């Protein structure tokens, strides 16, 4: 399904294909079950409101997990050497999130051909929810 991405074909500043999701409570519940985060602040509306929040909010690893596709669709399967995400802002039901990435550096190190990418999740207000970086190992034609 994914074509092979060769190290030589990568350009610095290249944009990775992105996508959007509009988040619902169903997304949150599906991720809670799959990922094992049963912290009630993410699914118990009454508890979230008693804690002073407007509603439940998504666990960072949900959209943090959705973001990985930006890297793997572009780089190919089994290439990830490093995947790092910082949680910056809360994600609420009905938020529309944009998942994006771009190449920042390509280099050879330790016998590997590596590409560093910046990856990000931004909501409909332009607020950044996740700031991240990924390093992939790519095959080389040499």
């Amino acid at each position, binding site marked *: 399904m994914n074509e092979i991405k060769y190290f030589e074909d990568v350009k610095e500043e290249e944009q990775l294909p992105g996508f959007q999701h509009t988040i619902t409570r169903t997304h949150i519940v599906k991720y809670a079950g799959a990922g094992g985060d049963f912290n009630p602040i993410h699914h118990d509306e009454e508890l979230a409101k008693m804690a002073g929040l407007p509603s439940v909010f998504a666990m960072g690893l949900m959209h943090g997990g959705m973001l990985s596709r930006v890297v793997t669709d572009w780089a190919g399967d089994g290439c990830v050497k490093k995947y790092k*995400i*910082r949680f910056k802002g809360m994600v609420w039901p009905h938020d529309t999130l944009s998942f994006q990435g771009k190449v920042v550096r390509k280099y050879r190190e330790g016998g590997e051909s590596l590409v560093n990418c910046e990856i990000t999740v931004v909501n409909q207000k332009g607020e950044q929810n996740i700031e991240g970086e990924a390093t992939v190992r790519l095959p080389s034609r040499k």
Partner: protein
Amino acid sequence: MININMANTKFKSFQFPFEKGKIREFANAIYDPNPIYRDSQYAKSQGFSDVIIPPTFPMTALFHVESDNIVLEVMQKLGMDPIKSVHGEIEYTYERPICAGESLRGEINIGNIYEKAGKRGGTMTFVELEIKLFDTTDRLVAIVRNTFIEKG
């Protein structure tokens, strides 16, 4: 008060089986339709022994650790206040891809504990929680580094 003496100590060990059904469920939950996470034949045609895991999958280790809530348990042992604490960041590092059918030995360790001044005054305490995964020959396969932040 956070117990700084717990920095750089071992916390728990566990066994982590990587299961095809769970990998598919996780891929569904992150809305990634890639067949590499679902179709064994396809994965083999791509050179893997079976379907592989998505990059953030290893936090499902939570299902395999003896604890009702390992994050809460670690916070309690450290003296962290969960109400004042947030998950700051997480980093996954891989030596190689992990496939369904593997079973890796896991070690949960407390890493560094350090403080920084908060932007709005007060002190923020950073606690690193690390999960290391080893194969049957004791080779390191992956590390997951979590940073939790308690706001003063």
